[in-house]
């Protein structure tokens, strides 16, 4: 695989004495997309949070572009180019859309941030002054995803971007994901629409009860019957 953009090795993490991840390994090569799958409660969200620094790891290493980051706080990981778009809506609900984009701008100017967001999601143009929490679910997720388009994050971890959204909106979101791929970013995507994410993924990891149960390429996974057992047929769209 060459030297990975993000490497998680032997990650142990959890909540207090309750360990959720029992030694997880995951590698994301530069410019590649990893689909992270698993049943409810498998530990997908916990793994992404551990990578971003929101959940402390009790053992293991996290390497971002060759630099060890498991001991540094979330904001420093973010400044080094690691972005987590969290489960739920990754927006500041009490701030306006414009203020959200200003928070996301980082080194860019606010007007440039707005330009990029509006280019990807034109509906946001008329709603810059609106409180983000009062947007529709789809629009909220657009604001959250535009964060990835605005900043130069090298690795983007996206947790359930399409949950609760209408199919048309999901299309729009996945279009943005394709833009990110085309820009050469490295992605880890947790997604319930398995077929959709397999279309864009280069590698697939399946988590089961806090351990990696399967690793493979999308085609392999589509053919493999074991795969269905872990994911559960119900999650196919």
């Amino acid at each position, binding site marked *: 695989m060459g030297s990975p953009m993000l490497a998680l090795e032997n990650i142990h993490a959890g909540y*207090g004495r309750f360990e959720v991840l029992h030694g997880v390994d995951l590698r994301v090569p530069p410019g590649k997309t990893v689909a992270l799958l698993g049943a409810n409660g498998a530990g997908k969200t916990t793994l992404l949070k551990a990578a971003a620094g929101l959940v402390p790891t009790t053992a293991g290493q996290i390497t971002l572009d060759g630099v060890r980051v498991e001991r540094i*706080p979330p*904001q420093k990981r973010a400044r080094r180019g690691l972005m987590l778009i*969290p489960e739920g809506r*990754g927006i500041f609900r009490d701030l306006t859309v414009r203020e959200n984009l200003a928070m996301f701008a980082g080194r860019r100017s606010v007007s440039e941030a707005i330009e990029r967001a509006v280019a990807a999601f034109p509906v946001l143009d008329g709603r810059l002054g609106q409180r983000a929490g009062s947007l529709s679910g789809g629009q909220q997720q657009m604001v959250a995803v535009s964060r990835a388009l605005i900043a130069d994050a090298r690795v983007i971890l996206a947790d359930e971007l399409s949950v609760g959204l209408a199919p048309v909106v999901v299309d729009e979101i996945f279009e943005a994901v394709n833009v990110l791929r085309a820009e050469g970013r490295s992605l880890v995507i947790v997604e319930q629409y398995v077929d959709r994410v397999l279309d864009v993924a280069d590698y697939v990891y399946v988590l089961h009860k806090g351990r990696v149960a399967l690793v493979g390429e999308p085609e392999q996974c589509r053919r493999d019957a074991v795969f269905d057992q872990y994911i559960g047929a119900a999650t196919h769209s």
Partner: protein
Amino acid sequence: MSEYLPFVVIGLFTGAVYALAAAGLVLTYKTSGVFNFGHGAIGMFAAYVFYHLNTAWGWGTIPSMAVALLLFGPLMGVLLDRVLFRSLAGAGLATYVVASLGLLVFLQGLAVVWKGGNTYRINPFFPTNTFKVPGVSGVFVTVEQALVVGIAVLAGVALTAFFRVTTLGLRTRAVVNDRDLTSLVGVSPNVVTTLSWALGCFFASLSAILFVPSLGLDSVLLTLLVLTALGAAAAGRLTSIPVTMATAFAIGVGQSLLVKAIGTRPSLAGLPTSLPFVVLFVILFFAKKTTFALPARAQERIAKATALRGGRSHRSRFPAGQLLVLSAVAVLLPATVSGYRLSTATTAVGMVLVFSSLSLLLGLSRQVSLCHAMFVSFGATNLSLLLHAHVPFLPALILAALLVVPLGAIVAIPSIRLSGLFLALATFGFGKLAQDVLYPTALAFGSDSLASIPRPAAFRGPAAFYYLVLAIAIAGVVVVEVLKASRLGRTLRALADSPTAVESLGISPWASRVIVFCVSAFLAGLAGGLLGTLVQSINPNSFDFFLSLLWVTVLVVAGASTLGGSVLAAILLVVVPAVLTSRAVTEWQPVAFGLAAMAFAQLPNGIMTMVRMPDWSAAWQRVSWKAAHQQRARERHAVTAPVRAT
């Protein structure tokens, strides 16, 4: 009408001071989730720093003020955030309340050690000459009043602009909204929080220093500025700075007009100072439950931290062995001590009952009551009234304590349904309100400010009275310990850890909290009757409102969860200064308690956490097969901590 106008001007001036204090309070609460009871104390200390530089070191007014405002205030904020409150991050509400109370007691005590308890006059900083308000006849305004009101209005506008326009303001609002997401976008929430602490403490210092020329430099009055800010902060739901500041102005004007309206009627003299609490109570009473729910993030953090600690065991054994040994020691005591030592011992035993009743709240259900001194005081005055109505002593004692219960219910019922913070706030306010408004009435001390409690003939001897206090205290302690070991106790302990989990078990958290609060008030009232009978006459300051705060810190330092803690608290508070009679001990005592409360706020059981009590029941098990068998049966049926599901 026009005779009221000058009072409006005075009211606007005090309102401006309240507005500045309240703005700082809300600012730190919003960004850190810590309601800082020590806010006023920080301002008070800044004023002392100013006074010291200005008088002892002879610095000019401007450099002294600059150091106190721009250096001491913000530095204090940074220190508090970095050293104290951050290390408590995610701890329960009670822990924050106790730590900030510790800060209050510590700074207030330190100011007294430093400059003594006197009130110092300070010359006005601003010109005192007056000018006429154009267009309004007969109203004169001093330059000082105009400037202070101007500063407050300007500060309000500046704060609003800061939040709306600046990047730092935006980041602060982002932290308030979602701390984790803020860190994910690369902004350190800790840095933002520290800055808002610095700003909040600057406001505390500013309000106190501006107030000093008219109020005088008084460590208690300035510390209580936080109380006055309470009503305004509650009106702004602890989040809106503009509403808070506007309400503060309204309270200032309202107080001033009340002063004018009441005139010289002494019975109502306490009313103006109590206006902020009346506002607080009206707001708490009519608030919807959700209005004052903790920010979701804070709840989440607390839940996370509870999970990290792995939850407490919700069981507790009746400490039969300890109780036996302690009672035996207490029974034998009069054989070795007499005179004033015996009366110290009597006070200590009475205080064990006070602390034990307080531990029912602090240690068991993690409710913070800040008006326990009021319960004690009413226990004594009720007894005095009943005795003068010729009710025999023992029934009078019980009845006096029972009469305290409705008072407890009045404070507790509206606030318990809100979050735990509001019980602390309501009791804080009510304690002061009662002292100002109720104590001078015939319900308590009456106009002569004295309640005499004649001792019954049977207990006139010091040893006889000691045994009476001891017997009642033991009975009270048994009630407390039985409650702790009961099903209700388990419920309350589980409730303190995870309100939602218990709610889903179908137990009303509201009812169990009110019950325990009433039992606690009853026992405190009982102790009050006994302590009052010991000294035979008490006045409104015998159980001063401030004592409530000290008691909470002492009990937390000693250990709020177990009987040993209550006994140790009484020893630390009563016996130590009686044995070591040097002035330094009495002076430094509050400082030490305050400091220790900050340091020990997070320990589950204060000093007693570090003391291993001999395991009496284990010893008992060894000799009794039956007891051991029962113990095992109990363990099998033990309720385990419910695990939070996502």
